[in-house]
Structures are given as structure tokens and as C-alpha cells.
């Protein structure tokens, strides 16, 4: 599964993307955030406040309860500030 990071989430993780093998038991976006936060210091800093993190699955905005089943690309980023 391809994981992408944007803005300060990307900066804290230290990388724009990575490919992971989804461990068993990681079913939702929320699960994935918790699991990623435990990987290293950078990930921990990026996901220190999970509630502010926005997520997208395959280019579509989703909430943290969304199941990961079938997802090819999951992205994490701060609230948008475009426009």
C-alpha cells in the first residue's frame, strides 16, 4: 500500500511517500494512523494529534472511520489552506 504525506505531515515524517505492507488487524484509517505513529520519531511527531490529520483514500477525502479494504493509496495531510 502506498502512503503519501503532504505539507507539515510530510516534513515531520521526513519523506513524501513510502510503501508499506499493511499488518494484520489494521482495518481503518484510524488504525493506520495509530500504527504509523509508532514507527519512528518523525511519524510520531507527524501524528501526535491524530484529530487534526486529514486523510484521503485513492484521491478521495475520507474520515478516520473509513475501512482500508481495497485501498491502493492512502494520503495524510493537515487541513487544507488553498483558495
Amino acid at each position, binding site marked *: 500500500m502506498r502512503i*503519501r504525506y*503532504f*505539507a*507539515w505531515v*510530510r516534513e515531520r515524517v521526513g519523506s513524501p511517500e513510502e510503501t508499506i505492507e499493511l499488518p494484520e488487524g489494521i482495518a481503518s484509517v484510524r488504525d493506520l494512523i495509530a500504527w504509523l505513529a509508532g514507527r519512528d520519531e518523525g511519524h510520531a511527531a507527524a501524528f501526535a494529534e491524530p484529530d487534526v490529520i486529514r486523510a*484521503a483514500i485513492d*484521491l*478521495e*477525502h475520507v474520515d478516520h472511520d473509513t475501512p482500508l479494504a481495497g485501498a491502493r493509496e492512502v*494520503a495524510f*495531510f*493537515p*487541513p*487544507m*489552506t*488553498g*483558495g
Partner: protein
Amino acid sequence: MPEWKPAIRVQPEPFDAAAEARRMTEGRKDLGALVSFVGLCRDEGGTLEALELEHYPGMAEEAIGAIAREAAERWPVAAITIIHRYGRIAPGEPIVVVLAASAHREAAFEAASFLMDFLKTRAPFWKKEHRRDAGPGDWVAAKASDDAAAGRWRPARGAK
């Protein structure tokens, strides 16, 4: 769903809002109103060197397309054009243009205003400030007022 497709572009280059407006109205006699919104890079304190806009390629186009389709379902608009830039943008330069054409002014005004509120909160762009003599600065924080602005449209969603 309307028969026309919104014109959507995500690009680093500046755009020509007037040329886009011409493209939407030329040769047509059924339009009564064209509302255009241009969002500019503003230097409040006089210390901004540039904004750097990061975006999520692919999702940016998808999200803007979804916002435009929603506007087209809610109001009788005849054409929509949205161009959003990314990359480095200097103070005074345009960042985004939204154009909405309709037979009637209320629809054009409301659609353009709705589009901007949703671009601010649902399109995957992030602004970083570069301060003069200070290098890369902070990421611009999302504003509660922008969420509130987007929220004011929600009660009517799906109602039209």
C-alpha cells in the same frame, strides 16, 4: 446533472482570467451574469517574500471537479471555470480564479461564493509562508472562519 463540463486546471503558471471569461461568454446570448473571483497573494505585514503552495496532484483536480459538480447541481449555472495555481507565488500575484456564468445574477454570485468556500476547505492545497530575510517560515494554519464559511452552505445540501 448539467450537460456541460466545468473547466478545471491546476497549474504553476499564472492565468489570464479575462481570457477565461471571454471563452465562457463568447458567442452566447443566454447569459445574464458572469461572476469572477480572483484570490491574490496578500502581504499583510510587508514581510512576505512569497507563498509556496503544495498540492496533491490528481486529488486536487478530483476535489475541485467534485466541488464544481456540486455547485452545478445546486444552482442553475451555465458554465464554471476554476484555475488553481501551485508552486511559488509572489505577493500581488493571483492564486486562484473562479468564474461562474448564469442566466441570473443570484445563481452566479452564490455559486462563485460557494465554490470559493469549498476550495478553501476541501481542495488539497497547503500554503507555506516564506518571510523576507528569514527563509522558509510556517505553514498557514487552517482558519475556523473558513470552516464556518463552508458550513453555512450545508443545511441546503441535497435539498436542491
